[in-house]
């Protein structure tokens, strides 16, 4: 056994908040997330002989957590989304959706710093909602890379895929996440992109709403107005 019982317990307690956070984002359900963490800890204890050294504990237990999640999906008959995709890897040179690129269209140049304004206005809930919308095979790479700060190599080990697959899957996942965020922002009037141009009664093109109007639209949606 690479580590003692006491070390195992300490590692589990230290990582519990992060394991629970990842489990919540995978299952999108608090009760299922608790079950997933409990099952992960139980499996990890039974498989402790397979852990080679203490430094590998974090990647090892997150791998067990992810595999346990996939097993549960299969048990319930819910096919993990990535299995249904014939080719989910990014092709070389493929351009991913970018909020930054959207905000640097010529008709938006009169906004002083639109991308920074965008980041200032999106809320934690907006990010959480966008992340939850991603399919599982995209969500997990964003979670491991951006939330948990795993290296590409650690993600590859955790998901049992080559590093190149991590790189391409992450590129696609980030593009998809930004597209969802962008759509959410437009739905609630947050993004700097103007509404579709239309002619006013006097024949002049309408102008984009000012920031205050966007904020008012969001406040109305949030029930504050």
């Amino acid at each position, binding site marked *: 056994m690479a580590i003692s019982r006491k070390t195992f317990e300490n590692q589990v307690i230290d990582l519990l908040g992060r394991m629970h956070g990842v489990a919540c984002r995978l299952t999108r359900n608090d009760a299922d997330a608790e079950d997933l963490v409990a099952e992960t800890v139980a499996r990890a204890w039974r498989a402790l002989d397979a852990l080679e050294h203490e430094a590998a504990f974090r990647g090892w237990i997150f791998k067990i957590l992810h595999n346990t999640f996939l097993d549960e999906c299969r048990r319930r008959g819910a096919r993990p989304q990535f299995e249904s995709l014939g080719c989910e890897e990014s092709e070389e040179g493929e351009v991913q959706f970018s*909020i*930054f690129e959207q905000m640097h269209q010529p008709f938006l140049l009169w906004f002083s710093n639109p991308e*920074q304004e965008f980041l200032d206005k999106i809320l934690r809930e907006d990010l*959480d909602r966008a992340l939850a919308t991603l399919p599982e095979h995209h969500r997990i790479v964003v979670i491991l890379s951006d*939330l948990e700060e795993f290296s590409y190599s650690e993600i590859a080990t955790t998901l049992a895929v080559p590093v190149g697959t991590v*790189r391409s899957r992450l590129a696609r996942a*980030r593009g998809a996440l930004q597209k969802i965020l962008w759509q959410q922002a437009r739905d609630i009037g947050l993004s700097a992109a103007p509404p579709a141009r239309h002619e006013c009664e006097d024949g002049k093109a309408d102008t984009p709403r000012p920031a205050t109007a966007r904020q008012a639209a969001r406040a109305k949606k949030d029930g504050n107005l």
Partner: protein
Amino acid sequence: MTKHEIDCERALSQLFEFIDRELPDDRRAEMQHHLHTCKSCFSRFEFERRLKERLRGLGKGEPSSDISDRITKLLSRL
């Protein structure tokens, strides 16, 4: 171009690997040099870096007392 100079296309193609600290030292130096000299790519870098920073903030959180109690009990039974 000197050995440290790359164009915007190459810089953007490896931007996320730069932010993720996955580039080897020589390519990291190329990126640093380019970002010091190209305002457009630097703006894109700042946007992506800040978005990643916001996402990292989602990962922080204390476990609820419910899950802590449950796992503590589980560990005592193992």
